[in-house]
């Protein structure tokens, strides 16, 4: 017969016995909060279409996450909000004109193939949202490169980046050829670039909104300055040297702002050490600008980050910290 147990057992665990109360879901929530300004800007400029795209991506991501975990017979991770974040980030990286079923397919790919196949959050080698976007860009190139003018329904237009691309190869910007002059004329004014009144993906247009979110993340200590600073600085210096469109225009248009602040800083797929983060940011900036100048796509931000994602484990290995007191 079993002896009588004491009514209350004490919890036995290894130290420490106190916690900072940080949690994964709180971090994800912080990133979602940081994305609210740019989400609002996207909706303001691209209207209800943007709302539909966002809603589609987020719900598709959530359903896929839940189904994948069920299929794998693992505990549900819907509550950690990472799927919401992936869906939201993907939506913000899509043009508002994207057909909704394609947006849903991209979201399913991002969660199922880029994340859960590897074992879920923490195990994925590539940023799921970016992997989803890259998948869509290759599979549905047409819809993925059709841009609407902001605040105007169904008027297609090239993005400033597409217009700026030939400028890299123009002989001189100060005395432009007629073709280059036309391209320069298509670069939006600085004010429009800052507030986001230009064609582009839903969440990438408003530099001010993105920077606000970035400041919030820095204040909440969710991210450190290393990756965004190295990324943006590298891209800026590159465009100064390479010439072409003004360097600030290279930074403020396309995906560099959202990429540097929200995509490249993804914990799981970026290096963990400070030095590693600087190298990672530098690599992202360099690759992004190389693709913009020489690649066949006008924008290279997603691919740059994905390539660097693949290098992150190697960078980690290079930059292991030296213990306090070690020679």
């Amino acid at each position, binding site marked *: 017969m079993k002896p009588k147990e004491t009514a209350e057992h004490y919890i036995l665990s290894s130290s*420490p*016995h106190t916690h900072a109360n940080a949690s994964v879901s709180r971090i994800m929530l912080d990133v979602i909060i940081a994305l609210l300004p740019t989400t609002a800007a996207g909706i303001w400029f691209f209207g209800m279409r943007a709302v539909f795209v966002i809603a589609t991506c987020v719900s598709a991501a959530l359903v896929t996450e839940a189904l994948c975990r069920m299929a794998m017979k693992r505990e549900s991770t819907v509550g950690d909000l990472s799927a919401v974040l992936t869906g939201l980030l993907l939506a913000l990286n899509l043009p508002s004109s994207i057909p909704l079923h394609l947006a849903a397919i991209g979201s399913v790919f991002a969660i199922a193939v880029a994340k859960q196949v590897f074992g879920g959050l923490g195990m994925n080698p590539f940023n799921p949202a970016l992997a989803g976007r890259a998948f869509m860009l290759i599979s549905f190139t047409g819809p993925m490169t059709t841009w609407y003018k902001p605040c105007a329904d169904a008027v297609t237009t090239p993005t400033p980046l597409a217009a700026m691309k030939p400028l890299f190869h123009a002989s001189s910007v100060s005395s432009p050829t007629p073709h280059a002059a036309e391209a320069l004329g298509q670069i939006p004014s600085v004010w429009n670039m800052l507030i986001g009144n230009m064609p582009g993906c839903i969440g990438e247009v408003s530099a001010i909104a993105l920077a606000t979110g970035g400041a919030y993340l820095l204040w909440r200590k969710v991210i*450190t300055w290393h990756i965004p600073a190295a990324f943006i600085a590298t891209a800026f210096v590159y465009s100064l040297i390479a010439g072409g469109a003004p360097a600030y225009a290279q930074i403020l248009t396309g995906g560099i702002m959202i990429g540097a602040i929200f995509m490249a800083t993804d914990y799981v797929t970026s290096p963990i050490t400070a030095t590693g983060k600087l190298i990672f940011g530098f690599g992202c900036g360099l690759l992004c600008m190389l693709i913009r100048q020489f690649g066949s796509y006008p924008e290279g931000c997603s691919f740059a980050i994905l390539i660097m994602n693949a290098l992150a484990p190697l960078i980690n290995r290079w930059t292991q910290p030296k213990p306090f007191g070690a020679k």
Partner: protein
Amino acid sequence: MKVIKSQFEFKGGVHPDYNKELARDQAIENLPVPEELAISMSQHLGAPAKCIVKAGDWVERGQVIGEKAGFISVLVRASASGRVKAVEKRLGPAGGKADCVILDTAAERPADVPAPSAGPVLAPLDWRTASKEDLLKRVEEAGICGMGGAGFPTAVKLNPPPAKRCEYLILNGAECEPYLTADYRVMLERAPRIRLGVEIMRKMLGGPAVRIAIEANKPEAILAMEKAFADIEGNVQIVVLPVLYPQGSEKHQIYATVKRIVPEPPALPIDVGCVVENVGTAAAIADAVELGEPLLSRVTTVSGDAVANPKNIQAPSGTKYADLVKFCGGEKVPPAKVISGGTMMGFAVSTLEIGTTKTTSGLLLLSRKKVFQYSSHPCINCGRCLRACPMNLNPALISKAVDANDIKAAEDAHVMDCIECGACSFGCPAYRTITQSCRRAKNSIRARIAAEKAKAAAAQAKQ
């Protein structure tokens, strides 16, 4: 004597909730000798003492009941008079079993044993005239070990090899562990004793400079020490340290006070000319030398939100946790976790039947709402543990390696440098058992090294 602010901040560290207000204003109270004591033979770091009494024996207060068993070992004295009920293996707070002398202090004194004279247990010494050897012998026979928590034999520490000179004696009054206020109260109430202890240690170490390290969140303690040390001669300074956990760690305190870096193990502080002693140890040395009073009791903070009246208690070694709790008015709410020590490095225990030791700085009873649960969620690579690690390790890497049972990878990531301070687990948003993983890796590596040594010794014996 000067009070200066520390100029050197180490990398990493965390800011846990200190919760010191619970017990900080409670003056030290003496606990009447409980009816039963459980005196462990393993109250210190190193080989447990060898028990030399048996069930039925009558022992006097101060009588040696456990002999020093090796170089790194400390003798154990009875903290009260009484009859030995039993000598048995019992669980200690750290989870290991050690011989315990169960002492019935309520037993009647046998007719044939005369009551001892009222004098001190040991003959008082005049530290000014006593030789260094006499003083060392006194520290040893008083059974003193480091009272900060690790319990390193003090006589060994105060007797560095002749080739190594002690340039700085650092007095550790940081007490960076949450909840604990025992050292703080000792600094407030026994400042002159601490000063005397420092002067004795200074003599033993050949006159090093003295640095008294106190965290900035204890201004009253700084004042008390300033007053006690006001007229001391020689190079003595109080160094006010920034409030940062683990400021009390030996290596980090040495860096924060004198900017010296202790190399990787097996290097010791003395290799960079430093000896670090806890304030409580200093007071114990003063008592042992000047009063002839061996280390038989210590101040323990009993605190936590599940204790009715948190207190700082001077209790004889071997006092059962249950008696301490009773002295504090019992439990306010049923505790969900009981911790021997502080919340960052203390040990969770399963029973209140364990006896205190010379290193029991605190006993914490926490209610359910103060206790968090570890999980086995995957690491999200956020890097908080890297930033928190005061040893500048990569705890995420170590923890993942241990998860994969790859102890070699953990060793390559310098897990042996880990001081188990808990800063990594404290901030982990995935609630991973990082510190425990480090411990697991360290234990495996130590076991492997021991096995290799045994193998090599066996092979040599064969030849």
